[in-house]
């Protein structure tokens, strides 16, 4: 299927164009922005299995849509530049920086945030392992670390501690819980490997 045949993809391109246009003009020297800058558009996102209708500007990032519009504040903003990983969420199972993803670009995908990992009271094994291994201190980077680790396990490339370190390096922890994060991820990975050899 060509990209233009895909309605979600077409909406996405239009949205990005509108958003990009707004950002571009915002940075330009013209003191008078065009009248349509900041015009909200309707979009539908699927967050943690729930469909959510939003009326927001195309330039709104997925992270800001989650935090400021939907009040799902588990996803964190640490840099807004894709450098710290605190905003990591899963889209269709892949880990992405939600601060570098426009909300419109997530339309049509299944977005999973930290709030969507536990099954009711039952924590996701990684969440439980993070508590057990004290794999955080202040807790601010933690949702991103955990979502990233879920993505990492799905990718299936990390075999050794060194692999985990390398492939989790997009998630900064300033408190320095790295050795404990590696221990937590490895414990869950190895348990999963035993259960599903």
């Amino acid at each position, binding site marked *: 299927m060509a990209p233009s045949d895909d309605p979600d993809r077409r909406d996405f391109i239009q949205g990005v164009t509108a958003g990009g246009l707004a950002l571009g003009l915002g940075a330009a020297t013209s*003191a008078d922005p065009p009248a349509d800058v*900041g015009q909200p558009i309707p979009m539908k996102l699927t967050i943690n299995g729930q469909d959510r209708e939003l009326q927001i500007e195309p330039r709104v990032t997925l992270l800001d849509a989650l935090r400021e519009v939907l009040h*799902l504040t*588990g996803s964190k903003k640490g840099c807004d530049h894709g*450098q710290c990983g605190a905003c990591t969420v899963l889209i269709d199972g892949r880990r992405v920086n939600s601060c570098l993803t426009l909300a419109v670009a997530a339309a049509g995908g299944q977005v999973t945030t930290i709030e969507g990992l536990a099954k009711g009271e039952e924590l996701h094994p990684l969440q439980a392992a993070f508590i057990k291994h004290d794999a955080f201190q*202040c*807790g601010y980077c933690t949702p991103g670390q955990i979502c990233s680790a879920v993505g990492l396990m799905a990718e299936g490339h990390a075999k050794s501690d060194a692999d985990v*370190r390398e492939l989790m390096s997009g998630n900064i922890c300033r408190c320095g819980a790295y050795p404990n994060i590696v221990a937590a991820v490895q414990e869950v990975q190895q348990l999963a490997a035993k259960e599903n050899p």
Partner: protein
Amino acid sequence: MSTTAVGKPMDRVDGRLKVTGAARYAAEHDYPNLAHAVLVTSTISKGTIAEVVTAAAVKARGVAAVVTHKNAPKMKVPEPFGGEKPSAGSTTAPVLNTDQVFWFGQPVAIVIAETLEQARHAAQLVRVTYQEQPANLTLDSAGKVTTPKKIMTEATTVEIGHAERALKAATLKVDAVYETPQFNHNAIELHATVAAWDGGKLTVHDTAQFVFGVQADLATRFGLKPADVRALAPLVGGGFGGKGVAWPSTYLAPLAAKVVGRPVKLVLARDQIYGCVGGRPPIRQRVAVAADKDGKLTALIQAGRSATGTTNQFVEQFTFPARHLYACPNIYLTQETIALDTCPPTFMRAPGECPGTFALESALDELSYQLKIDPVRLRQINEPDKDPTTGAPFSNRKYQEALALGAEKFGWNRRTPEPRSMADGRMLVGLGMATATYPVYRMPGSARVAVSADGTAVVQSGCHEMGMGTATAQTQIAADLLGLPVEKVRFELGDTNLPFAMVAGGSSQTISVAAAVSAAVAELKGVVLKLATAGPLEGLKPAAVAVRDGGLYRTDDPASGESFASILQRAGRKSAEAKAEVMPGAEMQKWSMHSYGAQFCEVRVDPDFGTVRVVRFVGAFDVGRVMNAKTARSQFLGGITMGLGMALLEETHRDGRTGRIVNADLAEYMVPVHADVPAIEAYWVGDPDPHTPMGAHGIGEIGITGVAAAVANAVYHATGRRVRRVPITPERLLAAPRDG
């Protein structure tokens, strides 16, 4: 008190909140009709604002107001931090009430709009022009040089014997200059404030390590009674000192809220934090050490210059470690500041001890090669029997035990002494060590303890959790004091509606709050005893009963007593509570009170590229009794990790012409990432200090001390190249002359 919970590796009480995303940090508090504020910051380091053109921003969609120095309500500038009254004043610059620019990145306008995107867009439309003046930006500039009258409560200059004379007379000596650049805290949580006015009352959710300081600061600025300001920060996403005082964003959010008459959220962008929040200042230090042929120190000199601001007087106390570590008959220590036109510097994890130990412990390592004495042995030889500069007895110094423990766990004895003598294939291997140290500080504290008829207890103090595990450790402490299981105790913190607590700084919080909780429990005994009008406790004086097993028990008949719940139920009361305020005693004057440790590092260095990889790190610490073995270990790991960043990665780069910070982001200001951090081991001696509450010391800061020196010393051992300027980048390493 029986220690059932204290010391155990208990999981964090807020762990579930933090792993599920339910933990709410400052920026995550919502109010009806909340508006978003974005700052515009200065693009010069010094001068005056010539013109601010706001017309386009004001007209932009969704904009509620644009605030500049032309239209901002006047605020009163509070006393700077460190005075008589609790204050969190970061700088005396009257930000947004002046046309003066004191540093690059100073806020010069606030744009408030319906949405974050609208505010950010309109902020780009504000045009500011300046009349620029030459700025002092480096340690060698024409900035005002001052020898501070005092550094905190200590003399700036310490002189014992004749250090220069002894140095001159010595043949085995080192006399070198060490430099550390500016560092920035870079807590991952962005500085943020949500401010809401309700008539003349103000509520702020702030990224704060000192809610009562924020309260005092805002009360002064806006002419309010402190009781009319409520500051909340129950969870902080990392601080490291960067959130210890009220930086401009903390009061610009309430200012903006006042102007637009609605609640406002202000979150700094990552690059703005480098301009709106101070970092650790750059420092240049001379360290000279001399010893006799047996390794006994004969001279110790540490002197140098740190940067401060033109609008604060922050002094980084880098000569403090040398005042207490080693026996030496001739000591000279002094320091001065130079006032720069940069964002005023501030506390960053172990201010003083962190850069001070880099220089001192590097110099001792250099001396060890001159003496041909093992670096660990050198530190055993120079163990003092009393504080070398104050003469005070040590409260409970267990440095030698920590040193021996670390050396054993690390396997120091496999080290061959010569530089470049160990290799792994083509990689050079180096083993280095350094001493860690941090003072024991204790501050005033207060707490409220309430027990309920349902058998639970609530303990409150307006202290702070930013990763240290405060609520967890205090829950354990309170549980043991009350004789209750930890599940029955809840600890509440981070709110000015709770009993007063000082700044979460100086590694002082655990013992300061524990002392208050302990005193409150003692008070509670009398309160509950009055309710025991029947039963085994009837008519007894407080001295005749002890708090134990969730109740009161006779000291003359320990089997006889009654639970709090039972007493309260019979008295028809839901709960009983008591509050206590505790000041630190005179112990700091009487004893030399410090924590100690030994840091051991193994590196692999590529001889061609000069790249350094830390492959193993061991820290062993003497920190009194540890309150929670799990969270304490994490604190040590975290301190060591930040020290690895200082040693190899971190540096705030400034454009020498404009003062702009050119690496104001997390890709170019490099902090350690997963791949930079090896297996780290942390151990502790665990001997309780008889002169502190709970026998404990603070542990948040000692972990970073000595780390950069241990790495630099390991790099020298691997390569024969001495790098006296961190971070040890490949270009600095390859440019350093090679011995051996």
